């Protein structure tokens, strides 16, 4: 086994591409090192991306924010992103303890491809994109295209997510993320929901994106749920339609953490509550 900490994305891609054996990308390590310790992965090469300056930055650009892949939860929480995307930042800051926050990244959360990953529904609702650098060329894809199933991603050999792009916020926009856990801290989401809204001057929902976590093999973008509230002021009838659309989209598993019935029902409830918070944050009354 080798450990490398290259100082550019290009060098990292070259290392990964040239490696004949198995390789692993190390961001915060809060998933990878647990799996390494457990013997579930045995890479021949570990490529640490935390010494790549471009991956450590948060940049405000003309089209929004660019968050480097190695930015930790703590760094994100203290950044300018919080004001524009409070739901995304809160979701990322729910991950683990203070110790985990010092290390964990949203990109690691995304590429670990757990259906219960906390930051992912918020990122999907936000319409975030991942900038992927590989041996061939750079490509930018919607975050919902990264995970293809539990623990599996659409990234090819040698490809690294370099950053996440969050769009610029117009006036009267808000987002929120909620998860259900039986404890108050340090637990894996049983069900979760992220909602992002843009309102018109009268407080009518003009744009909406709704995403659910832990109710299917990957995080779901639920278009019918968004449709159910577009054109409304989030009156009870619209909220009920939103909840029904969310429940209809669920195909969860039954396990000790929650039954199919419970997850299906709570998905709707959480989506409603998250939508109300997002509406308030957007200035709706």
């Amino acid at each position, binding site marked *: *086994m*080798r*450990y490398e*900490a290259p100082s550019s994305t290009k060098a990292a891609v070259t290392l990964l591409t040239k490696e004949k054996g198995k390789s692993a990308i*190390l961001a915060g*390590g*809060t998933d990878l*090192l*647990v799996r*390494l*310790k*457990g013997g579930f992965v045995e890479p021949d090469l*570990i490529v*640490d991306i*935390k010494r790549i300056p471009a991956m450590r930055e948060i940049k405000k650009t003309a089209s929004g924010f660019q968050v480097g892949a190695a930015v*930790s939860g*703590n760094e994100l929480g203290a950044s300018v992103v919080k004001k524009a995307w409070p739901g995304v930042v809160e979701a990322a800051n729910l991950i*683990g*303890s*203070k*110790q*985990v926050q*010092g*290390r964990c990244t949203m990109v690691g959360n995304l590429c670990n491809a757990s259906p219960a990953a906390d930051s992912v529904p918020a990122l999907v609702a936000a319409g975030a994109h991942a900038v992927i650098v590989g041996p061939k060329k750079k490509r930018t894809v919607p975050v919902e295209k990264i995970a293809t199933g539990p623990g599996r991603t659409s990234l090819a050999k040698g490809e690294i997510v370099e950053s996440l792009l969050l769009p610029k916020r117009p006036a009267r926009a808000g987002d929120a993320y909620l998860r259900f856990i039986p404890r108050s*801290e*340090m637990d894996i989401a049983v069900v979760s929901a992220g909602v992002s809204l843009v309102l018109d001057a009268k407080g009518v929902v003009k744009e909406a994106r709704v995403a659910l976590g832990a109710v299917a093999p990957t995080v779901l973008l639920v278009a019918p749920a968004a449709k159910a509230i577009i054109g409304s002021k989030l009156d009870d009838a619209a909220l009920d339609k939103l909840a029904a659309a969310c429940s209809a989209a669920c195909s969860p598993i039954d396990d000790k953490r929650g039954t199919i019935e419970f997850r299906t029902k709570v998905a709707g409830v959480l989506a409603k509550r998250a939508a109300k918070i997002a509406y308030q944050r957007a200035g709706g009354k």
Partner: protein
Amino acid sequence: MAGVHVSTTVNGDPAEFVCDPDEPLLDVLRNRLGLTGAKEGCGTGDCGACSVTVDGELVCSCLVLGAEVEGRKIETIEGMADGDKLHPLQRKFIEHAALQCGICTPGFLIAARALLKKNANPTEEEIRFGLAGNLCRCTGYDKIVRAVQDAAREMRGA
């Protein structure tokens, strides 16, 4: 496995070691540097007994590789007291009997110090959330929270 040579700073002193590429910082501290204050409770980031700071950031040393800390500054429990003079948190933990077996204590102290550095006057709820990454099987947490509150008061000069 080829060893990785690492130069770093531990509690203000330069330290050098050679470790395996997949060796946790916790094992380096305990087995190579002789600093056994940080404990291994779980090895998977859940218990916080291995808490240290790296460049001022609170982390679980079981979830950091030794190879990662080249050029970084590490602070462990061994550097918390000033010679014979205990840190206020250490003193208050003793005064409030905030420990029984003591396995969790180094981690709690490092985490509490990091918490108070960011927030000199935390509420009880903030302390409980702030220390949620540290588990204690003995005390039931109340005495730990009281000790942190009392130390915070003293450190604020209130």
